[in-house]
């Protein structure tokens, strides 16, 4: 018998697992996939918590108070991330525009750019989905008085990729910098830049490099006389993958167990209590009993919720969902009603009937994208809601 069984190992599920494990509980995480982190950039947004708490039924109405605690807790778990509560930072998007960021991997902090007279944009040859001309033009638009220069970087190791016209993914470049040749190349490059430095307010913008992935790289950069600013990348991203690996590693180090690659088919319920999760693995059904469960199956993207032309369904418990009366709006990037679909919960994140408000299951906690009444892309709070709800659930298991 487990103390807690977490269904879904994305950011929300992992946070719940880590916190519960740290509190001395025995936790198992069962997850079909590795969640959305590897597609995301590693940046986590909390959004304007106080403002969002004013929105009727937004998850922050329940979670808002805990958000700051969750923020600090995350920084303890992931020291390679940076952030100061209440002070939003800045990171470069793959297009070279600045965007707000509350928690960001070390190295991504773009604030040195504001003081730079000269910005040197490193152009690693063949880097996939990176467009130097676009980035340069956008940098110039934002830093009008800085000079922006391109520094092309030819890497011997990738000559074969180039010859056949194969682009080099961010994740491959990130690994390269951690290798011995990579570190050597990096040292030489920094040395060259230092010699050629014209003023002491130069900054290097370096796509495809991720210090958070490798302590040795961090050491090299620490000795560089000029700041190096990394960029987020188009999916899949090395920084997102690193964050996932960190969180997973932390959970395991605390003694948590993970079963990845299989999904929970259903959970058996007896008199308002969830009892046994049935998992299909390699054609066999295995069951796990637990005292409490966390539902962290990631909404539509994680397939915790699926919609057909006629109905919308929660896939594990068959919980009733809040489904908005209108489904979509004409502006793609504006608020979309469908995104507000999810499970309504009480103060302890337990699922409620959206009509009567009655608690449906006593020992199930719903977190992350499974929650109703929010659109992460409009509220800029995807990471915040997921981390905070996961943190809270971890305290309840």
């Amino acid at each position, binding site marked *: 018998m487990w103390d807690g069984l977490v269904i879904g190992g994305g950011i929300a599920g992992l946070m719940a697992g880590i916190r519960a494990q740290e509190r001395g509980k025995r936790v198992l995480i069962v997850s079909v996939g590795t969640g959305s982190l590897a597609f995301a950039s590693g940046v986590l947004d909390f959004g304007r918590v106080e403002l969002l708490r004013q929105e009727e039924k937004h998850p922050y109405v329940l979670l808002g108070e805990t958000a700051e605690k969750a923020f600090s807790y995350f920084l303890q778990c992931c020291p390679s991330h940076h952030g100061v509560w209440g002070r939003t930072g800045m990171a470069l998007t793959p297009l070279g525009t600045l965007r707000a960021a509350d928690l960001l991997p070390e190295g991504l902090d773009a604030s040195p750019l504001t003081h730079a007279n000269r910005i040197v944009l490193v152009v690693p040859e063949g880097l996939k989905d990176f467009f130097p001309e676009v980035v340069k033009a956008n940098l110039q638009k934002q830093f009008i008085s800085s000079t922006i220069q391109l520094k092309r970087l030819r890497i011997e190791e990738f000559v074969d990729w*180039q010859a056949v016209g194969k682009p080099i993914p961010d994740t491959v470049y990130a690994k390269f910098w951690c290798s011995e040749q990579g570190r050597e190349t990096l040292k030489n490059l920094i040395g060259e830049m230092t010699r050629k430095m014209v003023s002491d307010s130069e900054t290097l913008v370096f796509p495809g490099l991720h210090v958070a992935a490798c302590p040795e790289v961090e050491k090299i950069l620490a000795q560089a006389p000029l700041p190096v600013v990394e960029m987020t990348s188009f999916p899949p991203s090395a920084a997102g993958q690193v964050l996932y690996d960190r969180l997973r590693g932390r959970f395991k180090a605390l003694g948590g167990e993970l079963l990845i690659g299989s999904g929970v088919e259903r959970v058996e319920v007896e008199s308002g209590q969830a009892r046994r999760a049935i998992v299909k693995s390699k054609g066999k059904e295995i069951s796990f009993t637990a005292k409490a469960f966390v539902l962290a199956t990631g909404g539509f993207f994680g397939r915790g919720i*699926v919609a057909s032309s006629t109905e919308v369904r929660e896939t594990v418990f068959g919980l009733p969902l809040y489904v908005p009366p209108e489904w979509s709006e004409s502006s793609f990037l504006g608020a979309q009603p469908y995104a507000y679909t999810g499970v309504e919960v009480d103060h302890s994140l337990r699922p409620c009937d959206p009509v009567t408000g009655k608690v449906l299951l006593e020992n199930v906690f719903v977190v992350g994208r499974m929650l109703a009444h929010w659109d992460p892309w409009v509220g800029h709070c995807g990471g915040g809601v997921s981390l905070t709800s996961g943190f809270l659930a971890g305290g309840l298991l």
Partner: protein
Amino acid sequence: MGQGLEKGSVRYSVQVVIIGGGATGVGILRDLSLRGISALLIEQGDLAHGTSSRFHGLLHSGARYAVKDPISAAECIQENAILKRIAPNCLVSTGGWFVQMPGDETDYVEAWLQGCQEANIPVREIPVQEALEQEPLLAKDVLRVFEVPDAAVDGFKLVWDNAKSARRHGGRYLTYHRVNEVLRDGERVAGVQGENLLTGEPFTVESLMVVNATGAWADRVAATAGASLDVVCDKGVLLAFNRRLFQRVINRLRSPGDGDIFVPHETITIFGTTSERVDTPLDHQPTDREVQRLLDVGETLLPGIAGKRLIRAFAGVRPLHREDRELTGASGEGEGREVSRTFALIDHEVEEGIKGFLSVVGGKFTTYRLMAEKASDWVAGKLGETAPCRTAEEPLLPALSERLRRKALALLPCAAAEKMLERLGQEAVAVLETIREDPGKGQLLCECEMVTVAEVEKAVADPDAHHLADVRRKTRLGMGTCQGAFCTYRALPLMWREGEKYDPLGRELIRFLNQRWKGIRPILWGEQLRETEFTRAIYAGLLDLQDKGTTTE
């Protein structure tokens, strides 16, 4: 009403102005150009901006009309054979089946066989067992199956190939130019005037004759010359599925009705359609009700249809020419279908004494060439030109050389090479040369439709491309399963390089996303909904783009 020619900042002079760059208009442009008559075509959007890119893509065999409309049936089978000869690159001769289902009228089959025979449409019955083996998704309770020479046609390509062929013979066209008025000089038309929508500049064309080929817009355009036309706008909704559900066109064997045709195109299938009167050709947004109705009806031919992955819904507006006598007695749902689909040529001199002004409305995509021939005969007759029509014999494109095909196969994966040759024909030469010089440009920018960087670069640089959507139509970028989640981003730097022409980061990108979104909204469920979460995460989250109130059109 304009009298004489107004002063415009840009002036053109030709024998004939054609208004409307759909299949009908470009067909006329090509026909006149081949006869040596100087012609200029004016289109308000990109070519095929209207119904000619919002249709089913079925090159009719005529069998659909065999009972109700024998004239259309005969025209279709004749044109079907001609187009297979002159435009093989734009067609896939999939063949088509007519299948009878339980509950469909039984005496219809006999009348239909009779009609096909009279129209000279070859029909062959396929044993049910054999049919089910060849099309495993087809409903198991089919009663009878007949094969006819239906085919799939790429409307966009056919329109562009006509335009390019016309250009080789001296024809000209202006896109993103809207005609605001047909000018008169007493009893005669004197040309047209309008606005270049890209620059806002006015333009004027002087001409001896004006041909109005504006489809569902034809009554509005005619009215500017003081002429009247009765055009019925009839909206039809279509659904695109992400894979080839059937290998051939599947028609339901009954009186034509809603949701009874599936047409396979490349890797996808288009299913439809519906029929509903609308007030304006701009009303082409499918409603949830129409989509649901199609899925309900489609279940008969394709059990489990609602569970198949949809990638978008769209609608087109049929321009049906209404003659009053044909309308008496027609009423209620589906009345649009009762109006004859055979086309009409309206000589406004006969109708209301305006000389040199012809409107061409109605018809079908399948019969565009025939409509163009008749319209051009009329024009030539009035001008006293005697060169005969050559469009039934002259191929649209010169045949592809074996060398070109070999070169494509050497540089690109087989499927990507074939697709590119289909899209570009002879123009693939330049793209292949670019890839040979810089293999990086052979990278697939769009993995769903297998479009290379070099090909998109070429489309972007084309003087006819003004928006990301034009590039999309030329290359099929963003038309596949991902609906542009990845390739939209990847096309950005290429557009950027063109400098002034595009503004990819601001309006242009958001406008493109909103256009795609329009087609997804009516089918927002299943995998497409999941893809939507992902695409929004990328563009609104990761890239932090914000829509500051741009419109879709």
